[in-house]
């Protein structure tokens, strides 16, 4: 997935200090959701997706909200492929973003 094109994201300067922690938590999500998937812990996947959905756009990452919503929906449907796809989308997105603060 993805061809390495960079994605420019503009973030509210007020949030500058919060962003590294926020992005680290999303990297952690990639691992956590992967592990939950192996254990079949749909609830944990649902919660992770739900919280991503709730916070992503607030921090300026609308794509993370969209990915979170997809994972939430897939987890609810116990759709492993859907969750996997969401995690891959997240991992890809995290690698391609270039942040500017304004």
């Amino acid at each position, binding site marked *: 997935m993805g061809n390495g094109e960079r994605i420019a994201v503009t973030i*509210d300067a*007020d*949030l500058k*200090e*919060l962003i590294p*922690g*926020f992005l680290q*938590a999303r990297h952690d999500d990639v691992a956590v959701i992967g592990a939950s998937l192996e254990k079949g812990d749909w609830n944990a996947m649902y919660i992770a997706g*739900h*919280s991503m*959905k*709730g*916070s*992503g*756009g*607030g*921090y300026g990452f*609308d794509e993370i*909200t969209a990915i979170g919503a997809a994972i939430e929906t897939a987890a609810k449907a116990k759709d492993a492929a859907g969750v996997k796809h969401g995690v891959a989308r997240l991992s890809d997105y995290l690698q391609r973003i270039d942040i500017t603060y304004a």
Partner: protein
Amino acid sequence: MGILIVDDSKESRDLLKTFLKGAGYKDIITAASAQEAFEALGLKGEEHRHGVTFRVILLDVVMPEMNGIEACRIIREDAHLADTPVIMVTAVGEQDSLNQAFEAGATDYITKPVSKVELLARVRSVLRLYQEMERRKVREKELIETLKQLSEANRVLTQLSAQDGLTGLANRRHFDENFSAEWRRAMRDRQPLSVVMADIDHFKLYNDHYGHQGGDDCLRQVAAIIGQVVRRPGDIAARYGGEEFVLVLPDTPLEGGIKIAEEVAAAVRTLKLPHEKSPVVPYVTLSMGVACMVPDRSKEMKELIERADRALYAAKRQGRNRVKAAEDHSGIN
């Protein structure tokens, strides 16, 4: 106090706090659960510390353990927090819960993902509402206080407008207003109404000799005696003019009026207020005329006053220091 943010997600708490701080809001407290929020609000523990208020509470709807709707309901149950604005923070797609939130007393809501512009606009607007409400409460309190003062001032004014400033007895105005009421009442009840006119003997000589200050003192002391004797509810004792007093005695036949007049005269004699220049006795004395009528439509109330006045004149003519009854006391059985 400032703003309370209640959200189980640290990321959400941090985000809200950062946006609010960036807009200049201070004293921002965060709570990770309803229980933590109750603690911050003083709703927990033995000493239910009431009155820990925030200017606004941001409350997440979906939280483990107790959700935001239940928490809102509990916050609203506290009298001190009943008016504190509560803004619910809810994810898109959770709008179903909004009805419940508003039923639980929420003031407003914002959706997650939170937009900074929306957040600040909502907070500003509920704060304005809150301030307006507080201002109105203060104004209401002031208004109630003013009304209280006004009604007290009215009470005092009413009393003052009915009172003779020098003697403290009823004044002429009060007499005029109430005598007609007593007249009509006596007519309705077919009861005798007695009037006593009283005059301090040779008061002009008293004034000339003791000065106006002395004259005023004399009036005050005689008035005090009258006030002590005439004290049945409904009785009126008033200063009628200079040194003249009038008593209105409802449900009182002539004999009763004479008795009251004699009592007043005796009490004044007992005072033994020196009146050196009096040709009668060297003390202050009263001349009094008593009249009584059972009012009916064929009679005029001024007639009763005139009869009492004529009796007073007779008392004076016969040497003062005495009580005389009107001779033509028609209407008395």
